[in-house]
């Protein structure tokens, strides 16, 4: 069964079971392996993608829900205007092992779209659904809220 949606700004089509996880559709059918699986049950946020601009956990989204929607993954975000933010994210120590990073980048980018200068507290709130085990979140928060009170 075919599901059609917009993927990183391009029309896309997935021929898969409607209950297949969006995460698997992206990784295995569409070859976009930037989106990671960390827990498979919506707890770690590593698989976060944007659906119509809102962060969703692709391990909990069945394919049929994507029909006609706009999906953006880390690959799409990295090709767009996020480059400056991503370079800052690397420079501030936001990345260590990188396994949580795609999900955090997607969540952070969505935050920056609605709030260009988040406070440290706003950034912590937005990131609360994304686990990182390497950085203690400090490097990530430095990238997101560089003006935050220090």
């Amino acid at each position, binding site marked *: 069964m075919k599901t059609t949606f917009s993927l990183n700004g391009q029309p896309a089509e997935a021929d898969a079971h409607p209950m297949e996880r969006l995460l698997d559709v992206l990784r295995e059918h569409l070859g976009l392996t930037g989106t990671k699986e960390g827990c498979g049950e919506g707890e770690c946020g590593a698989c976060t993608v944007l659906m119509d601009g809102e962060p969703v956990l692709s391990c909990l989204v069945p394919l049929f829900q994507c029909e006609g929607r706009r999906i953006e993954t880390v690959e799409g975000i990295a090709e767009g205007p996020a480059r400056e933010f991503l370079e800052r994210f690397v420079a501030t120590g936001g990345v260590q092992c990188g396994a949580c*990073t795609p999900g955090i980048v997607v969540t952070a980018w969505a935050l920056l779209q609605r709030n260009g200068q988040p406070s440290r507290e706003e950034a912590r709130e937005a990131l609360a659904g994304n686990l990182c085990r390497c950085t203690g979140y400090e490097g990530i928060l430095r990238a997101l809220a560089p003006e935050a009170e220090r």
Partner: protein
Amino acid sequence: MIGIGESPPRPDGFAKVSGSARYVDDVSLPGMWHGATLRSPHPHARIRSIRFNAAKAPEGAVCVTAADLPGPNGVQLLDDGWPILADGFSLHVGEPIALVAAPTRLAARQALAAFTVEYEPLDPILTLEAAETLPPLYELRLENGDVEAAFAAAEHVIEGTWRTGHQEHIYIECNGMIASFENGGALTLLGSMQCPYYVHKALTHAFQLPEDKVRVRASVVGGGFGGKEDFPSALAIHAGLLARACGRPVKMIYDRHEDIVSTSKRHPAVVCHRTAVSADGRLLALDAEILMDGGAYKTLSPVVLSRALLHCFGPYRWPSVRVRGKVLRTHTAPNSAFRGFGAPQVEFAIERQMDRIGRELGLDPYEIRDRNVVEPGDRLPTGQILDASTSARLCLEEVERRTGFRRRWKELEEARDSAADGEPRRGIGLSLYFHGAGFTGNGERKMRSPVTARLLEDGRIEVLTAMTDMGQGCAAVFPQIAMAAGGVGADDVIFAEPDTGDVPDSGPTVASRTTMIVGGLIARTVAELRDRVLAWRSASEKENLSIREGWIENASGRAERFRDAARRYREETGPVEVTIHNEPPEWQTFDESTYRGAAYPTYAWGADVVEVEVDPDTLAARPVQVTAVCEVGRAIHKTLCAGQIEGGTLQALGWALMEEIKLQDGRYLNDRLATYIIPTAKDSPRIDVHLLERSWEGGPFGAKGVGELPMDGGAPAAVQAIENATGALVNEIPATPERLMKALGSSNVLPSETSPPGPLSSEAGEGERRRGIPS
């Protein structure tokens, strides 16, 4: 030119933020199948039979049991006592019983239903108390000075029992491996690992293959923390067995549930201290017993226990010590390497013991430490004389200067009894800690780990090491060291992928040794190649040339690119390669039978101040602010160095306050991230890191090891802060609300003039509290 101490963007950074970095699960090989593991549901059982009904499995599925092994049934680590697949008996829940491969991941999972295993459940040993009745997996002693005489003469004898729990690594990328047999019978592995040569050794042993018929390559590693030190050896064998059985590449990726259930964790520990102290607060004797839960198999426990013994006395002066350490065997998954490797448990214990001693003598946490902290020239209980890089006092004084800890602690002590009902309680805690950098004892001497550098045909230098970047950043730090040591430019040096087919065995990526040991070897090999090129050019120019930032210069300043000269040198002389082995300094000797000598070439030092807020109704303790002052020699890459301390500190606070593996009858109650809770961004405090940079002559450009140090200080400081806030004497971590409630509802609370022991809020009534809250 990127200098030492600068923070260039890490070379793997953009690939990771843009999703193009290839982790093992992102790799797919032609014709590849998927593997799955059948696991024991029993903590202890005899396996009567294992049957695989192919008719019930997806078409073509192949299975492997212990009966199908091509060699010994043991994962070669220190020894091969850890079975590849259970044979006859299963000793913990989640132990691998059999393997299956099928064309898809889903089909492999479905094929597990085709197994029928007949178990005869046996009585399990599940507590350290019960395990003490059996022979230990390993034991060690350390004794120095006349302990009995010290106790007989001491004004104070103070006892304390301190307990720490399991901790699961929760690297965000679960364990994963792809195995394939190439033409000619060579086994090739690609996967997430810290130690390619550990995996290589385990594979040659299990498959009885010559070394050149096994090739192991690390993919991008999505976090390790010690959890990918030994476990990947087992998973690599499993994937290899299935690849051999089905004649195709096989990928095995653990899901989070099986990664939590079956892989190693931090050893739970009980440390019993008895301390002799003089009237003025000088430590006279330490008498301690360390019990660690090794789980079902020995794995790396002997080395973990060794590090525990060598850190249990803390950064303090002791005229006499007596320590007995044991790793006991229980019917739980084997516990093994986790950042800190035995030190965090015993440093939690000694730091809390110091707090108790301070209270007994009326000294604040700073004073009791200040009176006993080691200084350069002091002797550790092993007899090692501490060198000039001993910075415990500097860290202690600096953290006090930055935080005003003593005044704040006293204010909060005084405010405790008069706090308004229902108001959040603030508390502050201090810890002082240290960590031996590099392998313990004679480990480095036995390994003599090599690093190779060679000139490529285009004149660039290629450096070959077996180190993996699991996030800590050696991919950034190594080039900085190479550039600074060689005077070469950023484009003049490349680093080989960690692939046992190419790189020498420069040892495992563990023990805070990567920058300090391997970085030092990189500096020397690159400098040696540079010297050869310079000597060749100097000879032909008949003058002494120098090099700066990749350009060779003569006295008049005329310059040529190093790479061009190196290319011509390479053309003239043929292959140029330098291999240098690590030789620890001669003075660094350690007697493993008496535990005397220099167990580590140097130590990193740290002091933490942690401030917490305790909710009076829920008793949840939230860390608000951490100040970590650390001396790790010189930082090569400041941002990454601080990042290690930031991340390690939060990992320590997670262990201290919330992370808990709950087992019931040996079975996991919380084998998922919904129930095994690690800190989120909302739980995390502000972490201010201050590097006290002091050059250490034994490391490259003055660097010591950093990776594990920050795991040692967070927990005792956080628990002391809870005590400061609430009066609850918590002697076991994690200091969950349940444990706080229990302490507050019992006599395990600081004496108070004004209020009886009880909850912090009158909302929770006396009667409710007295009924007792299970922990």
